[in-house]
């Protein structure tokens, strides 16, 4: 049935427009209850449970469905979204039989009233409908609303209605659910001290006006990690001055939370401040602390020179909240029996959140998730509610979950919708698949990977041609054959962006069926591949390049060590081994040529944990060993990536997905140059080539580890490599690899960028068809943005995972003393690297309750003189490593100096462990 819907709209120019839309009412939406004859064929979409599980509500004992109103659903989605208790809610989201339940706005009724009435009509319809369905099985629909008037009207109309709170309280089986209710009740706020702390946020319309006229500035709020009373706002847009505005003091922060989009007003120049260097953590428990707060704020305003002053402002309104559920721990209230507690998020940039719970004692010492509901003007802390219990602090699963959540790594199991796009098993290659594909099954292809690798995405071959030249092929899993553009599987992989490797866990980008089976180029099975085949002469010069989709059958899956063994053992002369030897020979030439061009060989201390097979606890650490075969595979992957990058850029100059690595600004190298100079070595940084060469020359016969240290330092000077769309940028250079153009092609199983590159290449060679999004450079730029973000987050998560396992390792190991090298010298500390564990840590020399030692810091050399001992970069020291668990939320490795001995600072070497656990450790805690 057709209805027209008319409404008025204000246009941007200030006029008023009458808009008429045609409205087609459907008559084919069923009620969703299975077995309903009246709605016979109209059963599509989610269905209601046939027999709603009895949630044991004392208010309505018979089985029932729930029909929440929009507000309840929006605010209580967290509590509703828990399987088992409110499951019926999710499926009753739809309003069926729209013909009968359509409601038109009446005179004197505003839009909200109309919506309320529509829901009531639907509830009534449902009740009558279900009654018709079966007489003996009396199912009821219960209407849940928090609007008093709406509830009254519903009861008047004969619909069973309750408020959310009433209903949840009546659920005798799930008493803990009440904690999850977002606190909206007004009474809740009245208990708060009536004192208004914050000024009001301006309404959005005023903010927009102000931003347009330039009185306010719009930007992203970034809270400081070190100081809870300070934040910066990154102003959007590209005006050069006032890019970054400092906010200081609770009142000026005005309830903004990290990552919110806010509007700020600049303060007059006389009130500008300099960023303070004080570290302040919020420890207050009560509202009364507000006065103390002001005192602290004064503390920030230490005397500073004119020049240090930065534009300062205050938040006048919030344009968009960017709240998410936060991980953290409960700080139980001092008052016994209190239900209101403060929650301390793991992220120091998030303020503490007040929550109400009856289960404080069970939640203590556990990692929990809390969501923010709001922040009233008279409250020192935002109000929130408990969402989920992750588990005990220190438990491996809990901590892994926390670090995944905190780094925004999507790690839920793949949804049914995503899995539905997987190929049906048993899968085999069909005639259709063979179209546009070359059969390379006869070639002697093998893969070389680290041990235990299940997602093999590359394989290689090399053979001599009749004309004496060599044919080298790199075969990459044809993931884009399985992930078709635009479907749920594609969207999910695009969202995940990358596979995240944690110490003992892998978060796949694509479902396991693909990553470990169909796309994994395992040996002795036919697999679809995307091949890049070169014809080379024995000098590793490329004569011909060919890209083709193919079918391969890998003859062997080797580890780096196995491959190395085959190459080295003289008595093995089978096809695979000759192929490997040929590859190895070419790789050496390629590498040499690449280094000549100025590619950097950098170093970072990479460690691997030996896991206990039973407990999965780390029992030993080992730095990764590099073999010739590692670099052999790497060399050919680089070559394939570069060849593909050239090809897709040639074909799609405007929308090729490439990867660039910008050259770092010269100032980045300062620290490296200075550090080398202190050892009488010269590092040139004007070009990548001179840097590479000077790094090669920087050797010290007495100090073999020095070169590695320099390379580690050089790595720290580099910029992030990023994905970008060729049409949006004009600097393609990859600094680290010294290649004018580069992309990622070789790991489509674990990187989404490669999937896009595969698609581009497939279109370029005519093996696949294109689709609109592929040639939209703005869409591509958006994809790049997400990929860069995900890669960064994956890296952080990985580091956090290593850090956590290092902690576990030292927890079991107790306290150890190890040799270490100084990497950086700071004003009050030194950063050291322990080569044995690839572990980096900071040794502090200032402690709160101790008389500060005399510290003289020289920025030029750089060096730090403590009493009589001078520390330079790369000095060898001995440190004691132990686990500091004084702060349960942020356990960390603590290091203290053993050698050289400085009285009052270093720890005597011969103290027994017992002693250290006692009073000494306490001191460590305080020395934060």
């Amino acid at each position: 049935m057709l209805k027209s819907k008319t409404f008025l709209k204000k246009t941007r120019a200030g006029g008023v427009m009458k808009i008429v839309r045609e409205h087609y009412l459907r008559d084919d939406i069923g009620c969703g209850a299975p077995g309903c004859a009246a709605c016979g064929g109209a059963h599509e979409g989610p269905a209601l449970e046939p027999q709603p599980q009895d949630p044991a509500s004392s208010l309505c004992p018979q089985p029932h469905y729930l029909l929440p109103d929009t507000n309840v659903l929006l605010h209580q989605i967290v509590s509703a979204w828990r399987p088992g208790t409110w499951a019926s809610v999710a499926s009753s989201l739809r309003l069926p039989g729209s013909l009968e339940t359509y409601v038109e706005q009446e005179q004197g009724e505003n839009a909200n009233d109309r919506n309320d009435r529509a829901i009531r009509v639907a509830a009534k319809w449902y009740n009558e409908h279900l009654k018709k369905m079966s007489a003996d099985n009396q199912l009821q629909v219960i209407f849940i609303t928090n609007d008093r008037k709406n509830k009254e009207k519903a009861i008047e109309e004969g619909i069973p209605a309750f408020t959310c709170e009433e209903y949840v309280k009546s659920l005798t089986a799930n008493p803990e659910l009440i904690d999850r209710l977002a606190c909206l009740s007004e009474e809740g706020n009245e208990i708060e001290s009536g004192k208004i702390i914050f000024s009001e946020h301006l309404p959005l319309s005023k903010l927009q006006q102000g931003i347009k006229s330039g009185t306010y500035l719009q930007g992203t709020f970034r809270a400081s990690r070190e100081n809870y009373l300070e934040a910066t706002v990154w102003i959007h847009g590209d005006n050069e001055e006032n890019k970054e505005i400092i906010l200081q003091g609770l009142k000026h922060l005005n309830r903004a939370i990290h990552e919110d989009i806010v509007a700020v007003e600049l303060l007059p120049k006389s009130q500008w401040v300099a960023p303070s260097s004080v570290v302040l953590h919020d420890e207050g428990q009560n509202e009364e602390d507000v006065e103390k707060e002001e005192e602290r704020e004064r503390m920030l305003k230490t005397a500073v020179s004119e020049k240090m002053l930065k534009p300062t402002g205050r938040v006048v309104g919030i344009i968009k909240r960017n709240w998410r559920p936060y991980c953290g721990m409960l700080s139980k209230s001092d008052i016994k029996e209190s239900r209101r507690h403060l929650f301390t998020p793991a992220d120091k940039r998030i303020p503490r959140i007040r929550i109400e719970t009856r289960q404080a004692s069970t939640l203590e010492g556990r990692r929990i998730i809390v969501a923010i509901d709001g922040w009233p003007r008279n409250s020192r802390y935002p109000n929130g509610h408990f969402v989920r219990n992750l588990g005990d602090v220190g438990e491996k699963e809990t901590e892994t979950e926390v670090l995944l959540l905190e780094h925004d790594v999507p790690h839920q199991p793949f949804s049914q919708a995503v899995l539905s796009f997987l190929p049906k098993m048993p899968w085999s290659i069909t005639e259709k698949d063979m179209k546009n594909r070359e059969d390379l099954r006869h070639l002697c292809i093998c893969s070389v990977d680290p041990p235990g690798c299940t997602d093999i995405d590359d394989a290689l071959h090399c053979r001599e041609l009749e004309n004496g030249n060599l044919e080298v092929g790199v075969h990459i899993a044809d993931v884009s054959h399985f992930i078709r553009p635009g479907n749920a599987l594609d969207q999910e992989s695009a969202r995940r962006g990358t596979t995240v490797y944690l110490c003992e866990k892998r978060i796949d980008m694509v479902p396991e069926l693909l990553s470990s089976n169909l796309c994994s180029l395992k040996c002795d099975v036919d697999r679809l591949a995307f091949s890049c085949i070169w014809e080379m002469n024995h000098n590793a010069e490329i004569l011909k390049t060919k890209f083709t989709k193919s079918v391969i059958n890998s003859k062997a899956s080797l580890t780096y060590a196995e491959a190395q063994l085959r190459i080295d053992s003289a008595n093995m002369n089978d096809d695979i081994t000759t192929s490997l030897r040929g590859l190895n020979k070419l790789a050496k030439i390629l590498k040499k040529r690449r280094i000549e061009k100025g590619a950097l060989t950098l170093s970072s201390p990479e460690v691997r944990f030996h896991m206990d097979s039973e407990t999965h606890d780390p029992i030993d650490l080992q730095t990764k060993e590099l073999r010739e075969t590692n670099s052999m595979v790497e060399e050919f992957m680089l070559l394939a990536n570069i060849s593909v990058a050239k090809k897709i850029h040639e074909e799609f100059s405007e929308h090729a997905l490439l990867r660039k690595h910008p050259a770092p600004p010269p100032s980045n190298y300062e620290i490296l140059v200075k550090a080398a100079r202190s050892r009488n070595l010269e590092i040139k940084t004007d070009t990548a080539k001179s840097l590479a060469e000077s790094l090669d020359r920087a050797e010290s016969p007495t100090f073999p580890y020095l070169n590695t240290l320099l390379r580690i330092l050089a790595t720290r000077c580099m910029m992030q490599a990023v994905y970008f769309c060729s049409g949006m940028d004009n600097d393609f250079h990859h600094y680290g690899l010294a290649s004018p153009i580069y992309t990622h092609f070789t790991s489509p199983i674990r990187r989404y960028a490669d999937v896009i590159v595969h698609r581009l290449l497939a279109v370029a060679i005519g093996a696949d068809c294109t689709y609109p999004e592929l040639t939209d450079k703005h869409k591509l730029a958006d994809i790049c943005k997400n990929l860069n973000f995900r890669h960064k987050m994956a890296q952080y998560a990985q580091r956090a995972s290593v850090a956590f396992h290092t902690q576990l390792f030292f927890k079991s190991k107790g306290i150890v003393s190890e040799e270490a090298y100084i990497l950086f010298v700071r004003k009050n500390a030194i950063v050291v690297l322990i080569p044995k564990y690839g572990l980096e840590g900071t040794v502090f020399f200032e402690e709160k309750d101790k008389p500060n030692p005399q510290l003289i810091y020289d920025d030029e050399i750089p060096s730090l003189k403590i009493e009589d001992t001078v520390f330079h970069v790369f000095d060898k020291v001995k440190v004691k490593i132990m686990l500091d668990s004084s702060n349960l939320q942020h356990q960390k490795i603590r290091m203290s100096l053993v050698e050289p001995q400085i009285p009052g600072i270093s720890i005597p070497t011969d103290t027994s462990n017992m002693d250290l656990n006692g009073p000494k450790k306490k001191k460590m805690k305080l020395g934060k």
Partner: protein
Amino acid sequence: MASVALSEAEKVYIVHGVQEDLRVDGRGCEDYRCVEVETDVVSNTSGSARVKLGHTDILVGVKAEMGTPKLEKPNEGYLEFFVDCSASATPEFEGRGGDDLGTEIANTLYRIFNNKSSVDLKTLCISPREHCWVLYVDVLLLECGGNLFDAISIAVKAALFNTRIPRVRVLEDEEGSKDIELSDDPYDCIRLSVENVPCIVTLCKIGCRHVVDATLQEEACSLASLLVSVTSKGVVTCMRKVGKGSLDPESIFEMMETGKRVGKVLHASLQSVLHKEESLGPKRQKVGFLG
């Protein structure tokens, strides 16, 4: 204007008939043909009406848009008329053929509304000198069957009666910049009072008598006619002679009197039809070609 070719005998027949107060279609000299009025026919206008008078078919849409008041009348809104002679009415209107007639009708409409009493233009003012409502009255001529002016004036009145102007409020912030806020209730709107909106009664001089609501054939027999715009109270707001013949003062006076008399009756019946339709509410089943 659309015309029909009549033979001399036909003309004589018509003239003689009028002499006897009996017209070709059986009406008396002061009788209108049956008028069909339907309002609210075009959903994306602020007000609309369709009027059928014999074969004459008129569609009028009123669109309210925000504009700035005219300098000489800072606290009034205003009306704009535009008449489109569709080529579906008669092939003569094709291309720019209907432009002259359209302009003529529009000018007549401007003239009959050019007085303080017909529409209260002050209600159309939002904020003096800055914002006012401009009512664009668009007339679409779908079919010509004689007596265009009367049919158009009836349709305009019906459309104005049907017009609903959204209610807006002017908000002023501390800096003095004004912002217009729109009420979110679609039923919250201004209605115009159409009590004093005049209707045109055209009197055609045929022989020595005059008729109202002449058909095309009758118009062909007439050399001169008089347009009288009359309000519901019988006040004449405007008068115009059309046609190439001349009229003597005595018959002009007679025609005015007839016009006033017929006009009052016309207004009364139009008003009752409009109110009756209004009382049916929004659930009324729409009829006619746009229904």
